[in-house]
Structure formats: C-alpha cells, structure tokens
C-alpha cells in the first residue's frame, strides 16, 4: 500500500490495491524532476530511489 499523496500521478500508476509502479519505465521527464525528488524524499519506506544519467 503506497501512500497516495506522496506519489504524483504523473510519475506513478497506482492499482486498486494501492501498489504503485512507475510510468515510462521510470524515466522522469525534466519538468517532473522536482516532483520525483519530493516523492523520493517523502516515501516513509525509502522505496523510491532516483538515479541520474547524463
């Protein structure tokens, strides 16, 4: 069960059980980078991690 307020719908799909999976294979568009950073910073279980590619 993910806590839906901390996971932006632009970045994650949430199923009926409340489990979230990342959209777009987890690739974050540039304009959503701040939202992704906040989602990672707010996940109580440290379940979201971000890796940067150049």
């Amino acid at each position, binding site marked *: *069960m993910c806590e839906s307020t901390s996971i932006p719908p632009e970045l994650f799909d949430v199923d*009926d*059980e*409340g489990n979230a999976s990342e959209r777009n294979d987890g690739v974050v568009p540039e304009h959503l980078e701040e939202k992704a950073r*906040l989602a990672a*910073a*707010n*996940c*109580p279980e*440290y379940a979201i991690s971000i890796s940067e590619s150049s």
Partner: protein
Amino acid sequence: MSQRPRVADWKSDFDHTDPQWVADPYPIWDQLRSSCPVAHTGRYGGAWLPVTRETVAAVAYDTEHFTSRSVVMSEVRPDENDLPAPIGIAPPITSDPPFHALARRLLLPAFGPKAIAALEPFTRALCVELLDATNGQVQFDAAVEYAQDIPLRVIAQMLGFPQADAERFRTFIRMVLEDVDASAQERRSQAESGVLDTYIDARIAEHLAEPRDDLTSFLLNAELEGTKLHPDHVRGTMVLLMIAGIDTTWSAIGASLWHLARNESDRARLRADPALMDTAVEEFLRAYAPVTMARLVAHDFDFHGCPMKEGDWVLLPFPAANRDPQAFPSADQVQVDRAENRHAAFGLGIHRCLGSNLARMELRVALEEWMKRYPDFELSDADGVTWSMGQVRGPRTLPIRIL
C-alpha cells in the same frame, strides 16, 4: 485516571499512563533521546521504549524478534488460549508473518485509492451536517461535536452498520484503547464481557441473511486459499477496523484543530492559500501523530545494548520518531508548508497502516470543511483541553470559540 505511582525517572521507570505523559509527552521523549535511545520500566511486567527514529524503525522492521500478538500494552499479556494462532485476535494487525501478508492483502482493495475516493462525498456531506448542527453556537467542544463523529460514522458506513449505532462504538473503543491502566483482573473481565462480539455477531447475521455492498459482506464472502474466512477472522478484522479506524482519525482531526486554534498565523496561511492543506495535513500527521504501537519480545536478545527478555513489551512511539531532530530539521516546530516530510505517523514496515488513504481523506476533508465554515477560531478554555490516555493520543475535549 491512572492509579499508578507517579513517574520520577523516565529512563528506568516510564509509564505512558502517567499524567505528565498524557498532558505533554514531547519533552519526555526529547529528554530521553538525548540521554538514551531506549528507556525501560518494570511496570506492565517489563517494557522498553525506543524514542529515536532509528530505534523505532528497527523494532518495526524486525518481525523476527518482535511479535505483534498484542499491540496494546497493558497488565495483560496474551496467552495461548487468547490466540487462535496464527490469526491473532484482530488480524492482520495482531498477525505475524507469513499469515499476516495473506490477511492484509485481502483488505487492500477496500482501502485502496479508488475505494477511498468513492467515500469522499459521504465524508464531506457528513462534515457539513456536523457543522450545520453547531450553527448559532459561539462556543462548543470541537472534539466531541465534530472530530469524534467523523470517523465513527465513516467506519459505520463502510461496515454497513446503522449510523445510529455510532455512539455505541465509542464505548467499545474506550474500553480497549483507553482503559489500559486497569488491573489485569479488570482488563480480563472487560475482554470477556463479550458485548462487542455480541453486537458484531448480530450484524454478521443480518449480512448473511441479506448480503450488501459493504465491507461486512465483503469479508463474509472473502476467501483465503479457496476457503471462506474463519468466523473469528471476520469478527477480529471488524473489531480491528473499529478500533484502528476511529480513535486514531478522531485524534488526528482534533489535534490539528487544537493546533490551528492556537496558531493564528497558520489559520491565516490556510485561509490565504487553501492549496497548502496537502502539506499541512502531512505536517499535522507528523507533529501530532496519534498512534503508538506495541510489540512483545519474541525471544531473549540484545537490542542496542538492552537485554530484552521474551515476553517484555516494547512500546513503539511513532510520534516520538516524528520529533527526532536527527530525522527532521526543526523537528519541534510545526511548519504547514514542510515539503520534505518522511514521517512515520502510519507506522513502518509490514504493519504500516492499511487505512492511510482513508485517514488522510477524512483529515483533509474535515479540515477543509471546518476552515470554510469557521475560518477563525481559538481555544475558549486552554485549561479545559484534555488528552486521551493510552497509545492513541488526541484531545478528548476541545473547547473552542468561533471568532
């Protein structure tokens, strides 16, 4: 009120029913955090108290050394007769792995984002109805006349119980959650009185005779590995929803209103920018997290230098973890625009609150409707505010004056 001797040394003799803890536990936790990460008491037959985010999390994640067979600390420990293992008395909160995962998974769809969004109109109409009932009053008790009734009636609605019965639930909840300072004998006789079971059995019989689209019929039809749930499992889960879903949210709504009543600048910020409510709700959950859990030590072992013995209680104060300055900058300050807020108000690990979507929805809607109706208000009698005793913390009387 507690009949126990007052606490003189919190490090070696803590008691969560002590009037000092009930009135204001935060300074106690701050003091303990700087002196030792885990306090002890000989009360309740022996108990430990971690107060840092790190140690609270370590206990919550360790289901091998800590069992959830009982999650409410009192003089009574569960014995074999109490526990239809592996279910526990209120699955899945009292269940351990591996049964826990099955029992929890079963409930997920009922508390997922879609199911909870569908309950929002009911909740909003209920808040409006409760506020309408306060019309014309300049002073009233916001805990009793507003906060309390919201989760009571939302849970009644979800279970398909008569709305008029909401008042009766309150009595059951108080018995389980707030009379924790009772003697072992009193506590056992409460548990054995069977009033709650009788009530629930009557509702189950009605639903068996006439199935409906609600959580009670959902549980009665649910199957685990091809078999209908054991009647004890159905009843236990219904008890869990009443216990876990009512006092907790009532406390969070009440504590948030208590904060706003005392902080003019935060009221003004929320009036000026209602979109701040999302971060404000998270900050109220962090700063005034209502729920402390408990575990029992499964077998002797050493935890952070503490010689824990099988059967010792461990109190898990998520509200203390949320005030740990190592985990949160300015942890003791309420900042309604705090954007990074990895709080543990809903617990951590496999038992993390199943109803977090529901609780957040109720808290947000309750505060939105309140602020729309009463954008300015204050405490009418600061000394008249009383706080619950036990593992769920929130104001039980909250006298406010509408400005």
